[in-house]
């Protein structure tokens, strides 16, 4: 590398930026800042090391950057630092005292309000200021106060409860939990909750690195174009620019960005950089420069000549549109000439025969849209070369091990030369089951030999990251007159966008995890997944199921009405039950033949019963209220199931090492993305080893120190990684007792581990500490074991969702009043965390149903790429949430556990649609059900009614 040249450049770069001196008080300490006149307060605070101030949107919508200005919460992204002259700023670092959390922070921790923790500092500060002025706060006041702090994990229920508890100094009465175990089944405090509530530097971007460069990606302005000419000379000449990369400068390695086990079932149709762009937002070039401003200026200086190609925007015309993947080196594409990424065709029995035997056959079409994950922390990656010249990747990812393999392949490095670190993650929801920045960031580091950071802005996140596959679903069901389902057929057209990441697998789930919920001798699933020149779809919580369940559960509701049967009863008659075998799953594996699914545990009956009772179903279904005036109410429900890991594919491992004082080091490859995996895994280890949770030190998500794990997806961590931890812990316990047996002179089979002790048949005991010390220094043995785990089956959790809605029939506005989710997730390892998963999924599910949609213009450009117009729900928008955990015992799960992370997102859309039918007599088969669409439907119905009336006259 030309080192001399760089130094010279750096000198030239010192453009005279006028500096300004600003005196402020931050957390009661006087500070003098040298700033540029246009610096935003957020940027200055982070630069000064106040990492608890988070960057979530930069448009004043998300509140992650909240600080107190003279005691009042404000968005530091919406304020110039110079405005703060002479004023008092409080950041999260200023709450609490002497390393102790403030009362609000403590309550947030205690109530399980801290999930990923990215929004927590802002929330805590807002709450702190609010409580000073409103010591007797009510629930609506707290929801209003928090309405400027968006959270994508919790559904706001626990944060609001925590703040109310602070206000009313409620004594924690403890939770009503039936305990059969010492640690498992308890709401053990999340292992990372304190540091997250304190806003300590724990996320990817919370580090400072000398000499770090800022990477920026030039995004395609066209949906479909070939790069005829690209000139980077001016950009390279700009002082402060250290590298500009185009397709000419990087290896051309076909790959998929999907984070899946090798060999990935997704097509290899993507390149680090290419001479063709396939959607607005596709990579054209990448720059590394000394500052964001210089990097952005360099992007403006890159001259590109495009040959604009006809764009395929409508998936229904994709087959006959311009060929999107005409490159010869892509592989695994089903039919590139017709833009078909994948096709799926499966049948059990004969649906044709089934429909002939049916007394009632019903067929309907449903449409679902693009939803984005909108995790509060956008994708961010920092790469550097360590002192051994190994490429280190610190990244906000759900899949550290897949990233290591993918980046090694793409950048043509030996795998052992790549080290991936997953710090705390500010939410993923599937959006980070994707290698999105790590390759290009690594390429910039290799080109410059400098640390490089790339962080998507919120706008870039919307343009360039992933989303939920839009689908057109045609569903046909045949019933006997008594309501028994005879045939169930689903035909899906799905759009994967410009690249085929997760294309066949997400859609495979739309069939395999939806149709088998009901017993039917004849089932058929056909699916075509097409490329279009639109933003790329990918993995997203629910993974194909929210679309499928919207269709199936709406259709079942319609059939119940036609048959004159209670919708609960019709479902009960047909639902899959314990002992059944789901044969469709055998045909729809993850890119290969799957495995038949035997239902070993099933609590759906109880979910329906308890959910209905919690909502007041019977009463509300019969007696509709508020029929006068302009408000109408209705109730609806939906059932669903999911999986727990991918059968025969997902696997994980764990290593446990005994410390000399009886505590343990637990090393796992599992990736906690904020949902609490580290806590759940530590609980499983503690339970098995007979120690308290504080005796487990968990280390996760670092490819240098952890054993392999596929990562956080497919609702797999508790069952698969948890299974590995349990096995490893059992092996450690066996070794320990074997060694201890010789020390204490009691046969090993008479010894057990509990309460941090080794106990001999309940009469005599030794502290684990004294035994461990003896083993370490006298016996000179390191007690340590590792284990791997996978399942040949994916036990489904089950869920019943109930919704009560209120519609304003003059505006079409739908308000969800109460949403009840009853879930069978097997044994609940940590009730508080499990509820948190449900409540967060429900909030995303309601957003999917009503307000969230990525909108594209006629050129394929997203027209609402900000939280201003992509509406996720705030605390004030949330209905009353009730979460019911129905326990079953799953033989394949650790301590009987199944999954909980995804399932609850499936129910809200169909339950709300069914409730709307109950309220209005109108079926909504297209998502989202925006107020405008609802009003249009109401008017159409009125028109039809008038016409009918005229005819009858």
């Amino acid at each position: 590398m030309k080192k001399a040249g760089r130094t010279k450049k750096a000198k030239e770069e010192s453009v005279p930026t006028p500096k300004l001196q600003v005196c402020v008080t931050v957390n009661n300490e006087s500070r003098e800042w040298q700033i540029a006149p246009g610096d935003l307060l957020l940027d200055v605070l982070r630069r000064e090391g106040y990492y608890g101030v988070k960057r979530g949107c930069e448009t004043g919508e998300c509140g992650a950057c909240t600080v107190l200005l003279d005691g009042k919460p404000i968005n530091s992204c919406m304020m110039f630092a110079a405005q703060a002259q002479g004023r008092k700023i409080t950041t999260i670092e200023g709450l609490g005292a002497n390393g102790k959390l403030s009362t609000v922070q403590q309550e947030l921790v205690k109530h399980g309000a801290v999930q990923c923790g990215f929004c927590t500092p802002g929330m805590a500060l807002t709450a702190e200021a609010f409580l000073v002025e409103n010591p007797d706060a009510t629930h609506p006041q707290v929801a209003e106060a928090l309405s400027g702090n968006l959270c994508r994990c919790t559904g706001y229920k626990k944060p609001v409860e925590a703040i109310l508890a602070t206000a009313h100094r409620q004594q924690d009465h403890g939770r009503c939990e039936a305990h059969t175990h010492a640690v498992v089944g308890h709401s053990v405090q999340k292992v990372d909750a304190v540091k997250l509530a304190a806003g300590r530097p724990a996320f990817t971007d919370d580090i400072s690195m000398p000499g770090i460069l800022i990477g920026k990606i030039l995004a395609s302005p066209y949906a479909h174009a070939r790069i005829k000419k690209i000139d980077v000379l001016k950009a390279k000449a700009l002082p402060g620019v250290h590298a500009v990369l185009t397709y000419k400068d990087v290896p051309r390695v076909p790959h998929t960005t999907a984070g899946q086990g090798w060999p990935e079932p997704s097509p290899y149709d993507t390149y680090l950089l290419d001479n063709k762009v396939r959607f607005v937002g596709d990579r054209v070039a990448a720059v590394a420069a000394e500052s964001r401003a210089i990097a952005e200026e360099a992007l403006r200086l890159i001259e590109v000549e495009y040959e604009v190609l006809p764009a395929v925007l409508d998936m229904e015309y994709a087959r006959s549109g311009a060929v999107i993947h005409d490159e010869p080196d892509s592989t695994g594409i089903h039919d590139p000439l017709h833009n078909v990424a994948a096709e799926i065709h499966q049948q059990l029995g004969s649906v044709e025969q089934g429909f002939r035997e049916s007394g009632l056959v019903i067929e309907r079409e449903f449409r679902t849209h693009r939803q984005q994950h909108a995790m509060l922390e956008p994708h961010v990656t920092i790469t550097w070369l360590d002192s051994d010249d190994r490429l280190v990747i610190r990244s906000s990812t759900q899949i550290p091990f897949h990233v290591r393999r993918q980046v090694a392949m793409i950048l043509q490095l030996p795998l052992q030369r790549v080290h991936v670190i997953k710090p705390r993650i500010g939410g993923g929801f599937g959006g980070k089951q994707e290698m999105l920045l790590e390759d290009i960031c690594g390429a910039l580091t290799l080109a410059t030999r400098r640390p490089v950071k790339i962080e998507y802005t919120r706008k870039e996140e919307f343009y360039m990251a992933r989303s939920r596959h839009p689908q057109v679903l045609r569903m046909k069901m045949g019933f006997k007159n008594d309501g028994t389902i005879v045939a169930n057929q689903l035909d899906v057209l799905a759009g994967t966008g410009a690249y085929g990441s997760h294309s066949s697998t997400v859609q495979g789930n739309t069939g395999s995890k939806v149709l088998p919920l009901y017993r039917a001798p004849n089932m058929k699933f056909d699916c075509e997944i097409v490329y279009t020149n639109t933003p790329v779809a990918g993995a997203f919580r629910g993974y194909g199921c929210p679309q499928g369940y919207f269709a199936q559960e709406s259709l079942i509701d319609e059939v119940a009405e036609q048959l004159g049967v209670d919708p609960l009863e019709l479902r009960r008659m047909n639902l899959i039950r314990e002992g059944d075998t789901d044969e469709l799953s055998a045909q729809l594996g993850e890119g290969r033949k799957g495995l038949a699914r035997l239902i070993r545990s099933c609590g759906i009956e109880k979910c329906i019963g308890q959910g209905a009772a919690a909502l007041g179903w019977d009463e509300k279904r019969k007696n509709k209220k508020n029929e006068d005036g302009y408000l109408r109410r209705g109730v609806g429900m939906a059932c669903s199931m999911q999986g727990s890991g991918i059968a025969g594919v997902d696997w994980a491992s764990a290593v446990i090492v005994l410390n000399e004082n009886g505590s343990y080091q637990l090393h796992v490859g599992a990736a906690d993305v904020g949902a609490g995996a580290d806590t759940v895994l530590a609980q499983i280890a503690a339970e098995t080893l007979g120690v308290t949770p504080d005796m487990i030190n968990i280390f996760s998500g670092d490819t240098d120190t952890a054993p392999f794990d596929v990562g956080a997806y497919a609702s797999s961590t508790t069952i698969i990684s948890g299974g590995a931890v349990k096995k490893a812990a059992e092996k450690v316990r066996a070794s320990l007792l074997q060694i201890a047996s010789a020390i204490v002179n009691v046969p090993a089979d008479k010894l057990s581990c509990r309460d941090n002790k080794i106990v001999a048949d309940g009469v005599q005991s030794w502290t684990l500490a004294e035994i461990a010390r003896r083993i370490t220094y006298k016996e000179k043995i390191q007690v340590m074991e590792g284990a791997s785990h996978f399942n040949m089956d994916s036990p489904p959790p089950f869920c019943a969702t109930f919704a009560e809605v209120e519609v304003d029939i003059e505006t079409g506005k739908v308000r969800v009043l109460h949403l009840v989710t009853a879930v069978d997730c097997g044994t609940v390892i940590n009730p508080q965390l499990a509820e948190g998963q449900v409540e967060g999924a429900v909030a995303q599910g309601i957003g999917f149903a009503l307000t969230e949609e990525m909108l594209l213009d006629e050129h394929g450009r997203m027209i609402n790429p900000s939280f201003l117009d992509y509406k996720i729900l705030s605390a004030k928008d949330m209905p009353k949430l009730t979460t019911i955990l129905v326990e079953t015992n799953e033989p394949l799960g650790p301590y009987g556990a199944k999954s909980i992370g995804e399932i609850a997102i499936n129910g809200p859309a169909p339950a709300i649609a069914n409730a709307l039918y109950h309220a209005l007599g109108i079926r909504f088969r297209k998502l989202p059900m925006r107020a405008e669409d609802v009003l249009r439907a109401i008017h159409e119905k009125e028109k039809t009614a008038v016409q009918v009336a005229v005819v009858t006259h």
Partner: protein
Amino acid sequence: MFDHIRSFRQPFTTTEAIKLLQGREGEACLVAGGTDVVLRASRSVKVLVDISRLGLSYIKRKGGGLHIGATTTMAALEESVLVRLTADGILAHAAASCGSPQTRNMATIGGNLANASPAADMATPLLVMEAEVVLQGLRISRTLPLEGYFAGPHSTNSNRELLVEVIVPRSKPNAAFSFKRFARTEIDIALVTVAAAIRWDAKQRCADVRIALGAVAPCPMRAHRAEAVLEGQSADHKLIWQAADMAAQEIAPITDVRASAEYRREIARVLTRRAVEECIQRLTQEGSLHAGSRNGGAR
């Protein structure tokens, strides 16, 4: 992001601030709370002039009316007893629905008006309260009815002047006010806002009818034809619907990412009706209680 800004000025007098603006058209930009500037400042802006230290953050009662300094925040308006007790509290109501608490702690009444967004939340209540804005030039200041202040989307009729104060005249007795707002979610830019004011004369006929709509035309606007439908009439169900229909005809909404023009028109009709109905309802309640002076802070 704001590397094009070369200078940040913090004047302490309005004269100083105006001097900084003059001769720097397009280059200088005023910052009060900053919440709109950060989102909208173009790359041609080189100088920021912070007007938050000019002593313009106040709410005063003068001669029965309200004088509100331009840099008074939404939060201050929302919390002010004076504002809550004026005109059935619709200005406080509107301030409380303008963005998140964080935004309301920074955003100012002057900024909201001077930014001249068609959806400005402060505009419609102030229009029906017949508010005036005080524009300060280098030598003279003038007072302009708010209706004459807006020139178009993000454009006003101020001429190198600084908006320093909003004056809300004293409202006549037997008048009622209402403010309605419609958006996709609780924290959202308004799709439609409607404010209404109606006074009852001795025979309980509508007088001084004022209806204003926001986000449905290039500027927040008064619906004079709709007002005329009600003026001098005793408002019954049918007449209120007529007035609402008229308002829906008067506006010129656009289709954008948030809603179609047709939908905005429909919502404008519904909200106008509801706003007028609420005024009548308040007048009726008030009339049936006693004929004394109104001081309801109801929202």
